């Protein structure tokens, strides 16, 4: 029994953007609001019964959300770094404030940041020619965003999928640049196969780790070998597969996690952001996740 176990998302959620509407706003010279797409994503999460909710990251893929607003970035097919990275204006703050206006009581809001290493590896560097320097400048910019988010959200989640491809020796210091002195809890999401970097992840300066335990069940064994004192958000439905896991299947998966991590499991979630799934599939997966979570207490 773990009554503190919460359901969560990782970040992104699929919505269908009406480009005809957007063009009509252009032709009529009306202001363009993105709120309806945020509404759709958040409404689905709430309706599914999820406790920890994001803004859905509906505006852009998770790289461009940040690079579009950071100084030094030029948006092309891949973002190009053409100058020193600097924070100019709030990036996700307005959307988070907007969600907060209609978030039901008892729900928690996640501030989602794309990690500095992932931003670094996703851009074409034409300025620094030094990966580490670029990564730390991204981290400093994200820190400024985090310092505003901490007053709005319940916790901040940092997405660093590229850690599973290559784990830089400065990773701990990089994440610490963001999380140091942040007053709200922090979470680090690394999808992919992290079995070779479990000790490093357990040492990360964050409160919660989240990984794709559903797509990579061998991670259970990888973590079992270590003394895990970190809180865990257990990836429990796949984000890269449209098959909808049954409630029973998810219950079994969570129970397996509970046997290994005990009460350190504080959240269950999809393995990753759901942006690439069809909306109805993403919704059904969240619903089944919530139902499975309820069964755990029965």
């Amino acid at each position, binding site marked *: 029994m773990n009554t503190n176990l919460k359901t969560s998302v990782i970040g992104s959620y699929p919505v269908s953007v009406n480009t005809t509407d*957007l063009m009509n706003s252009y032709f009529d010279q009306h202001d363009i609001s993105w709120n309806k797409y945020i509404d759709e994503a958040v409404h689905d999460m709430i309706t599914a019964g999820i406790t920890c909710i994001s803004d859905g990251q509906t505006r852009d893929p998770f790289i461009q959300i940040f690079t579009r607003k950071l100084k030094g970035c030029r948006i092309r097919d891949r973002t190009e770094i053409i100058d020193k990275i600097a924070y100019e204006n709030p990036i996700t703050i307005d959307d988070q404030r907007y969600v907060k206006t209609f978030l039901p009581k008892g729900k928690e809001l996640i501030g989602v940041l794309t990690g500095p290493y992932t931003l670094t590896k996703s851009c074409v560097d034409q300025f620094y020619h030094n990966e580490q320097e670029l990564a730390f400048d991204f981290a400093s910019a994200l820190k400024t965003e985090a310092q505003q988010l901490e007053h709005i959200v319940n916790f901040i989640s940092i997405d660093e999928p590229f850690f599973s491809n290559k784990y830089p020796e400065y990773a701990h210091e990089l994440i610490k640049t963001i999380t140091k002195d942040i007053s709200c809890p922090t979470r680090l999401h690394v999808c992919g196969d992290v079995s070779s970097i479990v000790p490093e992840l357990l040492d990360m300066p964050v409160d919660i780790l989240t990984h794709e335990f559903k797509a990579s069940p061998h991670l259970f064994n990888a973590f079992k070998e270590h003394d895990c004192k970190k809180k865990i958000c257990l990836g429990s439905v796949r984000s890269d597969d449209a098959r909808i896991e049954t409630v029973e299947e998810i219950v079994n998966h969570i129970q397996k996690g509970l046997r290994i991590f005990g009460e350190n499991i504080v959240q269950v979630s999809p393995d990753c952001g759901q942006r690439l799934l069809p909306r109805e599939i993403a919704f059904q997966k969240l619903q089944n996740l919530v139902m499975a979570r309820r069964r755990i207490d029965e």
Partner: protein
Amino acid sequence: MFSFTKEQQTLEISGIHIGGQPGRNPTTLIGGLFFKGAPDYDFAEQHLQTMMHLSKKTGNPAIPDFFIKKEEYLQDIITFIETSLPRTQPFCVDIIDSSIKIKTLELLHQKNLLDRTIYNSIHIGITPQERLALQQHTPAAAIIVAFNPKDRSVDGKIEVLENGAHLTDQGLLQIAHSLGIKKTLIDTAALAPGENSGAAIAAIPVIKEEYGLPTGCAIHNVVEKSKWLQQFPTAKKSVDASSNASIPLFGGDFAIFGPIEHAENVFPIIAWYDILISEYTENYFGVNPSDSHPRRKLFQ
């Protein structure tokens, strides 16, 4: 004035040449026929004649832009185009509603008018049905509107041309190419005052340097929407007409200058700037003005 390092494409659309290095071809002027309610064809004919006369006098090519808002007027407008325009005169069909766009393409095909048609426009709102219609009834040319609702900067305009800003499955240039449209003009999407409207002008040299395609915009829309200018009622008309001069001055190739009745103010202004630009680009870059260039009219 400047010259582009990227090779510039000059498109020939039914006898009109658009594009190239600054100073080579005169700015093409696209005048709108917007009808309130049922089209007034006497009005249209009168202003078309005036615009064509101005074109002949200045050397700036003129293209009428027929705004088709309702399906009930479609047949009549196309018949007017067929019967009233000179037989080789290119024209734009300017339509917002996707279903009317499709019907218009079918009708233009039936009337054998597609080889003179400039489709206004392809943008992020293109539907699968519209794509199919464009493949079946491909116009001579299309204007691509580089409007990016996520990013109104110059980079945002490049992004939507390159990859659709993740709002379409491909970049708008690739979409036009895949539909078989061989001649594309880029409209840099002028926005309301205060909405980064200057980016539409700044984007002209950037897009020409990046792609070498004929580029322009409807910068007059910014003036039309300006509340600030309302305090200068006598100046508004001249600001509106002269705003188009920023297009050739920034290396652009065409101006969608608004209502056709503005032609009398716009043509002399643009011809004047084309002459000045040509003087400089010929002296400095060795760009010879084309045979029909306004500067050659000056020598006569």
